[in-house]
């Protein structure tokens, strides 16, 4: 899909606004801001020329760390993204307005630019209690989310919360929190998972959209392939130690100090699609594995329930009230089978012995070699 190349003036005209009322709108805007009338002309000029893409950034159940990550972006600087590249018209974490004045924007923008704004979602909607585990303006977040999504051009799911469900959706998911694609089903959704995602990946996705005027190529799960096409393990700088079988055996041992592979400490890099080992974090300073801790798989679906974090093998069967690794379960199964075989073999031997006795030794035996 390609994105809007219309100016806002064209948009407003298309919606039936006359030139006259457009100019009036501009002077009212200037007046509302307490600016001199001269500003009305600049506003009109700006709206006739180069619009910035309106972005509405909504928050559900979350920890705001995706926003925090976003403002860590160095290239481009998040200040440039917010002030020059997009028009961040709603974001409860940064916006000046509150209450009614804030809510008004959520009504206004979709009406003003139908089909032309991006909805960015951080966090996710809970469905239990009619959605009232996350209330905005007295109403369930999930309803607001659906309403704002209805006219959006595209939706960005920031982080593991919006993409997969994340920590609040971990077993037993008390609020029935769901990823946003469970409630927004008719829009393209770009998933940018991670807990949180890397700052430059977040701004990279946005600047790609703005620069090339199209959405990035997505994989079958909705992630931009440019950042989520490979696993941490595929480009990990410790990979030679993995292939060599040189593993850290315990924290702070000789291997840990030499930067050996963290596989045996539970590193989930081999099963995690993310760009940490290539782009790295906070301007390339380091990333979890470089700092000595294994990857916990934070950009993966279900990663909280695929722990424990310090074991190579995940626990399975928690839903059934047992909790064990595949090997623990398998060993129990094999031991049971072995015991069964032994008992059966014993009983069979007795039977064979008893059976043989009365038999006359005439029946010839088949070849047994």
């Amino acid at each position, binding site marked *: 899909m390609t994105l809007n190349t219309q100016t806002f003036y064209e948009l407003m005209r298309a919606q039936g606004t006359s030139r006259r009322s457009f100019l009036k709108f*501009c002077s009212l*805007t200037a007046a509302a801001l*307490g*600016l001199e009338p001269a*500003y009305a002309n600049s*506003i009109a000029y700006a709206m006739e020329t180069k619009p*910035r893409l309106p972005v509405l950034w909504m*928050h559900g*159940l979350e*920890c*705001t*760390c995706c926003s925090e*990550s976003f*403002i*860590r*972006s160095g290239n481009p*600087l998040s200040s440039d993204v917010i*002030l020059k590249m997009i*028009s*961040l*018209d709603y974001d409860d974490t940064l*916006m*000046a*307005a*509150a*209450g009614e*004045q*804030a809510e008004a*924007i959520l009504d206004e923008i979709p009406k003003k630019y139908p089909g032309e704004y991006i909805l960015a979602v951080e966090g996710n909607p809970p469905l239990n*209690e009619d*959605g*009232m585990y*996350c*209330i905005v303006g007295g*109403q369930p977040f999930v309803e607001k989310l659906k309403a704002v999504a209805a006219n959006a051009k595209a939706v960005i799911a920031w982080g593991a919360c919006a993409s997969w469900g994340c*920590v*609040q959706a*971990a*077993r037993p998911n*008390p609020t029935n929190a769901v990823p946003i694609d469970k409630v927004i089903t008719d829009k393209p959704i770009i998933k940018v998972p991670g807990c*949180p995602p890397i700052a430059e990946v977040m701004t990279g996705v946005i600047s790609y959209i703005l620069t090339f005027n199209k959405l990035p190529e997505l994989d079958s799960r909705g992630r931009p392939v440019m950042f989520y096409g490979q696993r941490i393990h595929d480009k990990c700088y410790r990979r030679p130690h993995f292939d060599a079988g040189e593993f850290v055996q315990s*924290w*702070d041992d000789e291997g*840990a*100090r030499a*930067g050996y592979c963290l596989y045996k400490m539970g590193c989930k890099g081999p099963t995690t699609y993310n760009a940490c080992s290539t782009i790295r974090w*906070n*301007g390339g300073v*380091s*990333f*979890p594995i470089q*700092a*000595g*801790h294994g990857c*916990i798989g934070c950009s993966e679906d279900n990663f909280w329930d695929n*722990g*424990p*974090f*310090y074991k190579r093998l995940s626990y399975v069967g928690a839903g059934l009230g047992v*909790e064990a690794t595949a090997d623990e379960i398998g060993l129990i199964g094999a031991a049971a089978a072995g015991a069964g075989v032994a008992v059966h073999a014993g009983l069979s031997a007795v039977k064979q012995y008893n059976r043989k006795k009365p038999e006359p030794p005439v029946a010839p035996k088949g070849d047994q070699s």
Partner: protein
Amino acid sequence: MNFVTPNGFNLDDSGRRMVVDPVTRIEGHMRCEVNLDSNNVIRNAVSSGTMWRGLEIILKGRDPRDAWAFCERICGVCTGTHALASVRTVENALGIKIPNNANIIRNLMQATLYAHDHLVHFYHLHALDWVDVVSALKADPKATSALAQSISPWPNSSPGYFTDVQAKLQRFVASGQLGPFMNGYWGNPAYLLPPEANLMAVAHYLEALDFQREIVKIHTVFGGKNPHPNWLVGGMACAINLDAPMAAGAPVNMVQLNLVSDIIDRTIKFIDEVYIPDLTAIASFYKGWDFGGGLAGKNILSYGEFPSKANDYSNNSLLMPRGAIINGNLNEIHDVDLTDPDQVQEFVDHSWYSYPDEAKGLHPWLGITEPNFVLGEKTIGTKTNIKQLDESAKYSFIKAARWRGMAMEVGPLSRFTLGYAKGMAEFKDPVDKLLTDLKLPVAALFTTLGRTAARGLEASWAAHQMRSFFNQLMANLAAGDTATANTDMWEPSTWPADAKGVGFAEAPRGALGHWIHIKDTKIELYQAVVPTTWNGSPRDPAGAVGAFEAALLNTPLADANQPLEILRTLHSFDPCLACSTH
């Protein structure tokens, strides 16, 4: 109806009800309702936490060594502080001792969080309560430059610099797309700064936005990323390798240490030359606006933070003081014991949870988290469209935390007040200096502005502590001690079958406690009582109000349709709702 609360506040809900929902520029979802009298003065305040995720329930049955990661996701703004409290909790329960370096690195990371979080709060979450962005367009860049140079040696202060910033702002405003500044309360008479001060603040809003991302790189070195760096029960995972083979690929080596050292210097400089002067300048224009005290200076609490000796969490070891002050008596500091069942308790009779007996509070080791979303009879609206809350019934997802039955205020101001009361020079001197500079009495501390000021002073304190922690680390390394983790009790087979623990931290927003019960190597119970649980607390069974509600009372609004002063006072606490309800 008139009502005097047990903690001495006069409530009157007869006037016009005003609702602010969402409260923005905070972490998470919050609603505030106030009643205004005929002079637009707040006579009743109701604050409600409007989100809940159930982390305490989700933690049950998990491996205690994993708990820090779950807890860390309680909040990405005070990122890492819950992880720190969590590893301390597990270590406390199991009797695990951490190496000196791990203690120093943890202190350094926590101080880094203070510096970062306070800075971002001041400029990006709080400044717009004091600074009128649009008014900055009217400023004279030369005069702005003169103002800036008169208060700080910070180099970005030439007339040309401010001209550029103003032009940038002009272009932005003229685009007609105001983005995050849309629908702000520009021109509200409660904005008192002259245009020049506004322009200076806007310039620093942008500079701080660009600089804050440097500070957190310290977390990246030791924890691999920020937000949400990695922690470890028993120490830290960031092994140190200075000159053994393969040091280049080690988590911490000379290059990384140099980066940390450099960032510390720049952080100190930014805070002392930008943040503190801005704070002082802004405060000087708002001196007369002395509202928002509430519980400040009356009932305050701190658990203490920054153990100077590894594994010693006693008062003597803590650089940030521990204690409680009640009824404003600064001469008596009460001991705080987190294991005492009578001290820290949570009540839920005004919260959307249920207890078997809601007249009583529960100590966290006996804590229960069972959601119960019901609205009181006097609620206006419906279950899914609330117009007005009924504060006589359950009205918030925040539990009511109480210390010896009393509502307490926590946070930087409480910590500094304690340090002040204890006569500790590092807290008293900067406070006295600020008060003298502004020609204000000590009482001026116990206001909205005092809270904001204490946070700034604390950011500076923390930045200087970072240098001291770093120097300690280097001294330790020079002495040949490079250990970062103790793995003696890493394996669950070495643990007792039944263990209880408590860990605490002073998070940027205040006192943070985690309580755990480990049974058969799994988490049997996990309870967190968080800074914003204290400050944002709803009423308790006796009707005592929490710090947010108390602080809003008696504040006049300049424009009854614009909640600017409400935001100002709430923001002075730096509310974090994801934290408060978890």
